[in-house]
C-alpha cells in the first residue's frame, strides 16, 4: 500500500487585500470580493520564488516523514513559475534537502495541476518498487496581469508530499484523471503574463474536467459523495470549488477545511495540494479524502486517500497551514506589491 | 636594526578630485614630500593602496608609480591590508631602512575612489570584509560597525550623544586643517538628525568617500642628522597584528585583539607605556570606532570611550588629544592613504608645524590604522626630542 509519509507547506507572509488592487484600477472591490469569494491573497517577498517555497515546504515534509533524505529516489516540482525556463527547480530542491546525487528529477508544467501530476508520478514510482520514497511538490509564485481579473487572485504557496510504502499518514486508495486539449488559459514562451478565455474557463474547462475526473473515480470505486469525509477541489477563486462541490453532491462540511482561497488566493500548482495539506492538518484517523485538481490546458487528477493513526502523531512536527495563513502575516499596499512582484520598470 | 627617522612628509587637500587621476595624486603627494625632505634621494618605494584594481582597473602600481615619479628603475612594493594599507606601507618603508636594504625609502598611500559609481565603491570597500560569509549576505561597512555600535551601547550604555561628539570634535579639528575634505564645524544635533545609514549609525557617523594621497620619506637617524632641515622625528616602535576577518568568528565582539596586540608590540619596542604618549591619530572610520579604539589602546578603560569624549579628554585641549588632524571623518578617508596621512599629522605636530591645531609640548605620538572591521591593525610610535 502506498501513500503519503510526510507533508509540508510554505506560504509567504505578505498579503494584499482586494480593496488595495481595486483602488489602483478604479474597480469595484465589493463586487470582486463577492464574485470571487476572495478577500486577500498571499504575495511572495522579493527573496522568495518557486524554488524557495518548494525547499521550505519539502523540509517541513521531511520533519513529518522522519526519513533520511538520501533515500528519496525521485523529486518532481510542478509549477508554472519555475525560476529558470531551462534548469530544473528539482535540482535545487534535491541539493537543498540533501537528496543528491542518486535521485531522479525533471520539472513538470500543467498549469495548476502540475503539482498533482507530480503526486501521481511519485505515488506510482513508489508503487512500482523502483524507488523507496518520492517527493512531489506543487509550488507557484504566479503573476496576474495588472488590471486583469486574475491579478486579484494570483498568489504564491507550496505543498510538498513525500510518498512511500511505510509509516503512512494517508494511504492512497485510488487515482483517476480526465484530460483534453482545451485552450482556456495559456502563456507563450517570453510572454510575461498569461492570457485566458474569460468565461470560457468555466463550463468547458474547469467544470467539464473536474466533473469528468470525479465521475470516473466514483464509478471506478463504486463510492458516492457521502462516503467521503473531505473533498478538495482546485480553487482558482472562492466560488468555483463551492459551485462544483454542490453540483456534484458534496456539502460544506466536506469542503470547508480544504477551501483556502478566500484568504490565500490561487496558488496555482499549490492550490489543491495546499487544500489537501490543510485538510490533513485537522483530519482524524481513518477518514476518506477526495482530492481533485484542475489545470488549464486542460485536465484534472483525482485521488482518494484514507488517513491513518500516524497522522496524529506527526502532524505537529511542522507548521500547520492555518497557522501560516492566519498568524504572523503582514499587509502591504499596491506600491510595495508592485515592487515585490517586479512590476516597476528599473534601469538596467 | 638601524634607527629610522622621517625626514619628509607631503599631501594635498583631499576631496573629490575630479581633475586628478590615481597617478596624479600619488605623484603630487610624493613631490610635496620630497621637497619637504631637503633631499632628492629615494632608494625604494612602498605604495599602500587597497583597491586600485576595482576603483580604477589598475594594478601593478609597483611599476606605474615609480615610472610616473621619474624614478623608473627603483625597487617598489605594493602592500594591501584594506584600510590599513597606508600604515602597512610606512612599516614596510621602515623595514627597508632598518634592515639596511635602503637608505632612503618613500612610502606613498593613495586611493582614487570617485571614478566609479557609489554602488561600485561600496562593493569595492566590502571586499575588506568576508566576501562569502559577510558581504554576500548584504552587509556593508556601516552595517558591520553598526552591529559593533549596538553591542557597545547595550553593554556599556554608550549614547547617541557620545557617538555624535566624536564627529563634532573631529570636525572642529578638521576646520583647522587646510587639507581636510570637510573643514566645516558641525553640532551634535546635525549628527543625530542626519539620515540613518545602518541602525544606529547615521550619515555623520561615517567617514566619507575621498580621493587623496600622502607620502613620507624615511631614512636612518644618522642621515637625518646630516640633512637637519627639520626637528628630528623618529619611529621608535611599530606593531602589526591580525584578527579574524569575519566578525562572527570573534569570541567577544567588543575585544579588538589586533588593536591590543599591535599596540603592545609597538609600545614595548619603543620602551613606552600609553601614559607616555602625548596624542594619537586613530582610525575613526565610524564614530564608534574612535570610541572603541581609545579603549583598546588603553587610553581609557573599556566602556569609558564615550564618556571620555563627552568630557573633552580627547579634544585638542584635553589631556589626550585624539585626531588633531580631523580624523577620517573630517579630513577624509581615501582608504590606502589614511595610514600615511596619520604619520603626516604626527610628524607635523612633533615638529611644531601644525599651526592652529598645534598640540603644546607634543613629544611622543601614536598612530593607529586598522583594516576592515579590525581584522588587521598597525600602530606606530613616533618621537621627537
Amino acid at each position: 500500500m502506498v501513500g503519503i509519509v510526510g507533508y509540508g507547506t510554505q506560504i509567504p507572509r505578505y498579503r494584499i487585500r482586494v480593496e488595495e488592487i481595486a483602488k489602483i484600477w478604479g474597480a469595484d472591490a465589493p463586487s470582486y470580493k463577492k464574485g470571487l469569494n476572495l478577500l486577500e491573497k498571499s504575495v511572495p517577498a522579493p527573496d522568495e520564488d518557486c524554488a524557495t517555497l518548494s525547499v521550505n515546504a519539502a523540509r517541513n515534509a521531511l520533519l513529518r516523514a522522519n526519513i533520511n533524505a538520501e533515500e528519496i529516489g525521485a523529486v518532481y516540482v510542478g509549477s508554472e513559475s519555475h525560476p529558470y525556463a531551462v534548469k530544473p527547480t528539482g535540482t535545487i530542491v534535491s541539493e537543498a534537502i540533501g537528496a543528491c546525487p542518486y535521485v531522479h528529477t525533471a520539472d513538470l508544467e500543467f498549469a495548476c495541476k502540475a503539482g498533482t501530476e507530480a503526486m501521481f508520478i511519485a505515488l506510482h514510482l513508489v508503487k512500482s518498487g523502483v524507488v523507496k520514497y518520492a517527493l512531489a511538490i506543487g509550488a507557484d509564485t504566479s503573476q496576474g496581469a495588472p488590471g486583469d481579473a486574475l491579478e486579484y487572485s494570483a498568489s504564491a504557496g507550496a505543498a510538498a508530499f513525500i510518498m512511500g510504502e511505510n509509516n503512512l499518514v494517508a494511504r492512497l486508495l485510488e487515482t483517476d484523471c480526465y484530460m483534453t486539449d482545451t485552450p482556456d488559459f495559456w502563456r507563450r514562451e517570453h510572454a510575461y503574463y498569461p492570457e485566458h478565455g474569460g468565461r470560457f474557463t468555466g463550463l468547458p474547462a474547469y467544470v467539464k474536467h473536474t466533473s469528468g475526473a470525479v465521475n470516473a473515480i466514483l464509478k471506478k470505486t463504486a463510492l458516492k459523495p457521502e462516503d467521503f469525509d473531505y473533498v478538495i477541489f482546485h480553487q482558482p477563486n472562492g466560488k468555483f470549488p463551492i459551485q462544483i462541490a454542490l453540483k456534484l453532491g458534496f456539502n460544506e462540511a466536506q469542503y470547508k477545511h480544504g477551501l483556502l482561497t478566500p484568504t490565500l488566493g490561487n496558488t496555482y500548482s499549490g492550490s489543491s495540494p495546499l487544500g489537501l495539506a490543510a485538510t490533513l492538518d485537522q483530519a482524524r484517523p481513518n477518514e476518506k479524502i477526495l482530492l481533485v485538481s484542475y489545470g488549464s490546458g486542460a485536465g484534472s487528477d483525482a485521488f482518494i486517500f484514507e488517513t491513518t493513526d500516524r497522522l496524529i502523531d506527526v502532524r505537529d512536527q511542522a507548521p500547520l497551514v492555518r497557522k501560516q495563513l492566519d498568524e504572523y502575516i503582514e499587509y502591504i499596499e499596491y506600491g510595495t506589491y508592485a515592487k515585490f512582484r517586479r512590476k516597476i520598470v528599473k534601469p538596467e | 636594526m638601524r634607527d629610522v627617522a622621517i625626514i619628509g612628509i607631503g599631501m594635498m587637500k583631499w576631496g573629490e578630485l575630479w581633475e586628478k587621476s590615481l597617478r596624479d595624486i600619488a605623484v603630487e603627494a610624493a613631490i610635496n614630500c620630497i621637497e619637504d625632505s631637503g633631499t632628492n634621494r629615494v632608494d625604494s618605494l612602498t605604495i599602500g593602496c587597497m583597491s586600485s584594481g576595482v576603483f580604477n582597473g589598475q594594478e601593478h602600481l609597483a611599476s606605474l608609480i615609480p615610472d610616473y615619479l621619474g624614478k623608473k628603475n627603483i625597487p617598489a612594493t605594493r602592500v594591501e591590508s584594506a584600510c590599513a594599507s597606508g600604515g602597512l606601507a610606512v612599516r614596510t618603508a621602515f623595514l627597508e631602512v632598518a634592515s639596511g636594504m635602503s637608505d632612503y625609502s618613500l612610502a606613498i598611500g593613495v586611493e582614487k575612489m570617485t571614478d566609479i559609481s557609489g554602488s561600485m565603491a561600496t562593493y569595492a570597500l566590502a571586499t575588506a570584509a568576508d566576501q562569502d560569509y559577510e558581504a554576500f549576505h548584504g552587509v556593508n561597512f556601516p552595517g558591520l560597525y553598526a552591529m559593533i555600535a549596538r553591542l557597545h551601547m547595550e553593554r556599556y550604555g554608550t549614547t547617541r550623544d557620545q557617538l555624535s561628539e566624536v564627529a563634532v570634535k573631529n570636525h572642529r579639528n578638521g576646520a583647522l586643517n587646510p587639507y581636510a575634505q570637510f573643514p566645516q564645524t558641525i553640532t551634535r544635533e546635525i549628527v543625530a538628525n542626519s539620515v540613518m545609514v545602518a541602525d544606529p549609525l547615521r550619515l555623520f557617523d561615517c567617514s566619507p568617500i575621498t580621493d587623496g594621497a600622502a607620502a613620507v620619506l624615511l631614512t636612518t637617524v644618522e642621515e637625518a642628522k646630516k640633512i637637519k632641515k627639520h626637528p628630528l622625528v623618529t619611529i621608535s616602535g611599530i606593531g602589526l597584528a591580525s584578527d579574524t576577518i569575519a566578525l562572527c568568528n570573534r569570541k567577544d565582539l567588543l575585544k579588538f585583539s589586533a588593536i591590543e596586540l599591535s599596540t603592545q608590540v609597538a609600545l614595548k619596542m619603543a620602551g613606552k607605556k600609553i601614559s607616555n604618549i602625548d596624542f594619537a591619530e586613530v582610525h575613526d572610520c565610524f564614530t564608534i570606532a574612535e570610541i572603541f579604539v581609545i579603549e583598546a589602546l588603553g587610553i581609557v578603560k573599556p566602556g569609558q570611550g564615550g564618556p571620555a569624549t563627552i568630557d573633552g579628554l580627547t579634544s585638542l585641549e584635553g589631556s589626550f588629544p585624539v585626531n588633531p588632524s580631523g580624523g577620517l571623518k573630517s579630513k577624509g578617508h581615501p582608504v590606502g592613504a589614511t595610514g600615511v596621512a596619520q604619520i603626516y599629522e604626527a610628524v607635523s605636530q612633533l615638529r611644531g608645524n601644525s599651526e592652529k591645531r598645534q598640540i603644546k609640548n607634543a613629544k611622543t605620538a601614536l598612530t593607529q590604522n586598522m583594516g576592515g572591521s579590525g581584522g588587521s591593525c598597525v600602530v606606530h610610535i613616533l618621537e621627537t626630542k
Partner: protein
Amino acid sequence: MEVPKHWREIPQRYRMEAGKCKECNYISFPKRLICPECGSQSFDPINLSGKGKLVTHTIIRTPHKDFTDLAPYAVGLVELEEGNTIMGQITDCDPQSLKSGDRLKSKFRRMNEEGKTGMILYSYKFVPDNGV
C-alpha cells in the same frame, strides 16, 4: 558572475555544511583545512540546524543596488544551537522589532541574481522562530 564559486558554495548555502574539529569540537562554518582553535587538520562533517538566537544586528538602509527591493532589511550575527555564530540576513519581519536574544531559525531564500538572464543565487536567511 563567478559561476564556479557559487556552485562551490552550495553545500554551505543550501545545507549549512560545517566542520567539527575532531580534537577540540570547535565548529568551523565554512569548513576549513585548519582548526582556528587548536590547529588540528581533522574534522567531522556536521550540518547546522539553522536555529539560534540573535546576538546583534543592524538595519541596512543604503544597500548595493542588488538588494534595494528589500531595503530596509536587517543583517545580524546569530549564535546557533551548535555554539558557533554566523552572519545572515533576517527576513519576514519588521526589522525595527528585532532585539538581541530573539530566537531565529533559517529558511531557504533567493539571495541575488545576475540581471534578468544570469544565474540565481540561493542561500540561508533567518526568520523569527515563531512556529511558522
